[in-house]
């Protein structure tokens, strides 16, 4: 992993997996998966403050995200790593396998060195510390990938 300039750690570099994603002028849909209500609230506020993004839905577990995020869709999934149930890493792996157009951003409050081993190869585009989440960061991550 490399430490990105925008405050996120890039996990997958090089070719974009979502090159044929959304229409250019449509707002990007954002899902947040986190068992902490306070962070879901902060994410909703962040997305509301970003012109190019719209909050699609929020889930408390990885299982719910896998089940309810629509199949043929593009957008960003903000995925907490530590959650009850299968957790964020396994959820990311399954979501990316079924819906390759979705860009998954792993999040937690841990330092990047303390992340579980599966974080690097589960298909997530980047890891970001939760406190760095901002409209600007979302925009830059999305544009970098496209």
């Amino acid at each position, binding site marked *: 992993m490399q430490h990105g300039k925008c405050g996120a750690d890039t996990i997958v570099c090089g070719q974009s997996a979502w090159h044929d994603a959304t229409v250019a002028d449509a707002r990007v849909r954002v899902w947040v998966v986190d068992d902490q209500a306070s*962070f879901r609230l902060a994410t909703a*506020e962040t997305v509301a403050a970003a012109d190019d993004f719209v909050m699609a839905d929020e889930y408390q577990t990885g299982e719910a995200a896998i089940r309810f995020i629509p199949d043929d869709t593009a957008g960003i999934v903000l995925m907490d790593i530590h959650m009850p149930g299968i957790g964020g890493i396994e959820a990311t792996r399954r979501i990316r396998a079924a819906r390759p157009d979705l860009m998954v951003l792993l999040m937690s*409050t841990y330092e990047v060195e303390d992340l579980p081993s599966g974080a690097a190869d589960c298909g997530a585009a980047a890891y970001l510390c*939760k*406190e760095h*989440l901002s409209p600007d960061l979302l925009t830059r991550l999305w544009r970098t990938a496209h």
Partner: protein
Amino acid sequence: MTAAVRSSSLLGHDLIHRLMAERFQLFLLGHLAMYLGAGVLLSLWQYAFFLRSPWLLAIGAICTGQCVVLAVALRLARCGRYQHAITLDCIGNWVAVFLITFVSPSLLPAMVLAALVPVVFAQPYIRWRRGLVFAVITAGCVLALAALARFQHVVHWVGQAPPHWIETAFIVVALPMNAFHILVIAWNNAAALAVSESMLAERAAEVEASRRRLVTAADEERRRLERDLHDGAQQHLVALAVLIQLARTAADYDRHQPLLAEASGLLETAIAEIRRLAQGIYPPLLVSGGLAQALPALAAKAPGAVQLNLRGLGRYSASIETALYFCCSEALQNAAKHGGPGTTVTITAHVDDRMLSLTISDNGRGFEPATIGTGLMNMTDRLSAVGGKLFIDTAPGHGTRITASLKNPSRTAAAR
């Protein structure tokens, strides 16, 4: 339950002290019986029925003196004054065997054995240095007895020497009795050593298991703290950081107020969370006011009704106060978990000169004693570490009574 009782240090010490007291009195009685039987009664019997010899009266008088000494020593031993008892017995015994050998040198073998008896069983009851002094004096005494027997004729004992058969009768009675007494003492010492060794091994195994459980409990506590911090306060603070950053960079000033209101709410939640966490790590009232102030605060936070009767509770060392506080905390959690709705808990302190105990009883549903959780097991270990024990008395449908009990430390440990 067995573990709860066995992990206590009181039981082993009590048992050892009781065994020591019983052994000491038994040996003093044996010594007394020997002097009384072979020395006093045998002499008087022979004087009365066979031979009116002053020799027999002299032996009887010397042995009567030693019997009086032994009776006094026995009384001292009953008061636990072993040092005095054994010193008195040793001195009286040295004088008695010396006088008897002086009166009748042919009793030397029996007297040599008699001289050895007190030091053989005194060792566990006196300080090492005094034991060494007694052993050296006894060796000197044996040497003196041999010298006396060898050269006694020099002092021209004027008393009428008894017939040979009477001296033989004394030797035949006293020698095996003394030898048997010494053998019994030696066997008993060996048996006591074996019992002590097995108790020590059992205790060492129990202490090791308890230490392992305490270490595991400490590790689990650290993991729980990490989880609580990470999932609680830290998450609120992270969300707060995001919201403040949003407010800081928002171009639209109308957005500031709602963002700051949400941030303020999160901050309050985070503060409450940290306060709850800190309270759980170590209750501040326990430091400042001891159990008498911390337990009412704990009771006030309990989900059910709690009655308190804490009369007599003082200040104790931090480790004791902490152990008792967390026992109550664990018992209250237990009552909330197993008691069912409408459970009332009563915490009662019993304090006297000897013991300090807290009883936490509830009228709830109780639980199967075999299903004691790690929490109560940890409390057992924790109390054991400060020399106490935890009794858990419960059964399904009969409520629960948990008693944490330890020796009252007020007289030994300085209260802060």
